[in-house]
């Protein structure tokens, strides 16, 4: 190939690469903007915080993505080899300072803006009147314990755990407070009432994850971790395990039912009767 022929071929390659970068950029932005795949609707105040911050981040990263990919594509075509000398430049300090400062402000600004939602979720405990439910993860099921009408969680001991006999959390039957405890494979909560989950794990680390609540929390053996939230929409929401816990990790699922208050009371009563 002559030099001119090879430069022409190179010109086509440059155009093709730039075109590809344009396609990648626009299709990605399109999919995000149109929300072709997106979070399901959130049902908590935390969800509103998270979603707002996600969109802020999307806007900033979207702008950088657009400028960088298209800038790259433009440079490849505009400055392709034309048999001349390139510009002899070692850089531009002013430009360097400018885009470094802009980036720092954008990224750190984003980071600081994100802290409020996190602080609201994690820095304060649950209110005193919150409904407490214990969550115990194990290979490969979720156990949800309700304290019962006495409002007190009965004593548990790992040595009393007996899956085969159905005592998944090791309830001490000699403890009067444990008599009315309910241990279930599913969880229901009343709508618009603050709930505190007390998260535990029996064997390995699991993670309690409900998409619509917009959070997940690892359940760690040896730790008792509390989270609180208020669900604002009635419905059935799927619980999935979000920390690799063994061969059944992908099927460690359950359901969270958010019910109107009277339905919730009925449900609780029915569960107690079945037990």
């Amino acid at each position: 190939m002559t030099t001119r022929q090879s430069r022409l071929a190179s010109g086509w390659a440059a155009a093709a690469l730039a075109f590809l970068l344009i396609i990648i950029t626009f299709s990605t932005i399109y999919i995000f903007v149109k929300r072709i795949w997106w979070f399901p609707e959130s049902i908590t105040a935390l969800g509103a915080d998270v979603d707002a911050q996600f969109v802020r981040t999307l806007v900033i990263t979207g702008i950088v993505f657009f400028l960088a990919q298209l800038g790259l594509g433009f440079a490849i075509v505009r400055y392709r080899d034309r048999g001349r000398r390139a510009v002899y430049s070692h850089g531009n300090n002013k430009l360097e300072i400018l885009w470094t400062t802009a980036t720092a402000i954008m990224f750190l600004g984003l980071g600081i803006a994100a802290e409020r939602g996190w602080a609201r979720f994690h820095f304060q405990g649950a209110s005193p009147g919150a409904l407490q439910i214990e969550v115990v993860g194990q290979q490969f099921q979720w156990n949800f314990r309700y304290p019962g009408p006495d409002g007190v969680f009965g004593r548990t001991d790992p040595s009393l755990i007996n899956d085969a006999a159905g005592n998944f959390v090791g309830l001490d039957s000699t403890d009067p407070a444990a008599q009315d405890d309910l241990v279930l494979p599913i969880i229901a909560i009343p709508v618009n009432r603050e709930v505190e989950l007390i998260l535990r794990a029996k064997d390995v680390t699991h993670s309690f994850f409900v998409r619509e609540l917009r959070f997940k929390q690892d359940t760690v053996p040896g730790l008792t971790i509390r989270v609180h939230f208020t669900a604002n929409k009635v419905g059935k929401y799927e619980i999935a395990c979000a920390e690799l816990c063994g061969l059944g990790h992908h099927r460690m699922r359950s359901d969270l039912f958010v019910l109107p208050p009277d339905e919730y009371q009925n449900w609780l009563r029915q569960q107690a009767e079945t037990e």
Partner: protein
Amino acid sequence: MAAHAHPVVHEAPKGFIRKYIFSTDHKIIGIQYYLLALFSVFIGIILSLLMRLHLIAPNVELPFFGQMTPEQYLALMTMHGTIMVFFVLTTAPQSGFGNYFLPIQIGAPDMAFPRLNMLSFWVTFAALIVMLAAFFVAGGPGGVAGGAPISGWTAYTPLSAIGPIAGPGLGMGQTLWILSLALFAGASLMGALNFITTTLDLRTKGMSLMRMPLTVWAWFVTAILALLGFAVLLGAGILLLLDRTAGTSFFVPAGLVVSDTQIPHKGGSPLLWQHLFWFFGHPEVYIAILPGMGVTSHVLSTFARKPIFGYRAMVYAIFAIALLGLSVWGHHMFVSGMSPYSALAFSLLTMSIGVPSAIKTFNWIGTLWGGQIRLTTAMLFAIGFVSLFVTGGLSGLFLAQPAVDLPLHDTYFVVGHFHMIMGVAAIFGIFAATYFWFPKMFGRFLNERIGKIHFWITFIGVYAIFMPMHFIGLSGHPRRYADTTAVQFLAQLDPVHTFMTVAAVITGAAQLLFLFNFFWGLWKGEKAPDINPWKATSLEWTVPSPPPHDNFQGRFPTVYRGPYEYSVPGAAEDYTPQNAPDTGQTASRQ
């Protein structure tokens, strides 16, 4: 100040074993590491293709495999991650190309400790054998997965600490896994010592620190990260081994009951493992990417015929990335049960890494700006690196914010993020380096036409495979799921899995083009009689292809200028080599 009295160089070895097997020559060792990585990457790709096929057809009988169980899937996944991260991404860019070219680029006859270097390679080789042995021991998920562990490349405790009661492969398979990584860590520490000492002590006359190619800076800083990170991994691995075999409980708390069996440990912390692992694990990903950044800078400058834009800022950015990279490990642990207050600190530090990363990206584009760009295959991969680094880096900004991480942690969003940045950008760095330096290493060119086809299919393919992962992650698809049959909200995402699998099969197949090109090139590639076919400025292009045993035939160069003096006004050629004497005609800034 460089000590440029050159060390005594031993005579070139004779005999096949001393020349090619137990060699102390950094060039042979570099090739050995590269071939080890090449072998490993094909195993890693096959594992991932088996995984992707299973995901779209969990009940189908795969050829040679039969029906894959979930535990087999998890074993393949664990080994895929482990082999790729350690034996490919920590090996080829640093130990492969770094070993080969660091000494030559600074004008040295070899590494500071050639015998230690040989030991590092063979210990790494032993580590690979031990890792692969896990496939063949009993007590595992069986089949092709053999006895391999199922706890992921991150091996979180207690799952990885309490033995087979917690699942298949967690007995001997997990132990071999730990032993392999302990060996690998030891080898990496030895390699790091070599790289650091060589860079500081063996630079030739005139090769000041600020005249070193950015590849050398990248390998040097990577070695510092390796020294600090692998030391901690080694320690963590030893503690885990003790928990598993000596009755200690560093990582296992009291009161565990697994399948109705009481576990006798007490007093340990599962979070301690995560802190130790990720204190290594985060620098590890910078170990995987920094050499690729160095190569990209080097290749972009060469084929744009322009000095690198902002050399000094690029050096500072490498240090900033490394320093910050050591301080951000907690961003893997936002939902782990770690104090939510520390999440603030880790988050802001992590967001800050975006700044030097952005500097590098802008400077790469700035290097192309005003250039005379030649789209050789090496250049295509270097440009691809920039695009992929931008994409992969930006998704990190979402994960760096704890509130946004809440829905995204442990979903495919994370898998997409780290594959873009490691599984693709870093690999593109390796490809760029290969196409660029092949003629120097072997005196023959890789075929450019096949190389370009390889580039186009791969570049389109990797976007097709890994971009959709961000979308299904957004939709809540957890990671490390053997199939989508149980959790109901996953069913709607199955078509995306199909798309990604098809893309993966095509892209994986395209890598055979590279494999063919590589081995064909070794024996039948077009000869490269010109020792500087790319008209490049750094010192490796001043020596024969391949270089003699001591690199410079006893005549060590003197360096007069920086590494990227292209298109200097008034110069006869559009490149001015680092060792070309200053005739007073050209203005050398550095």
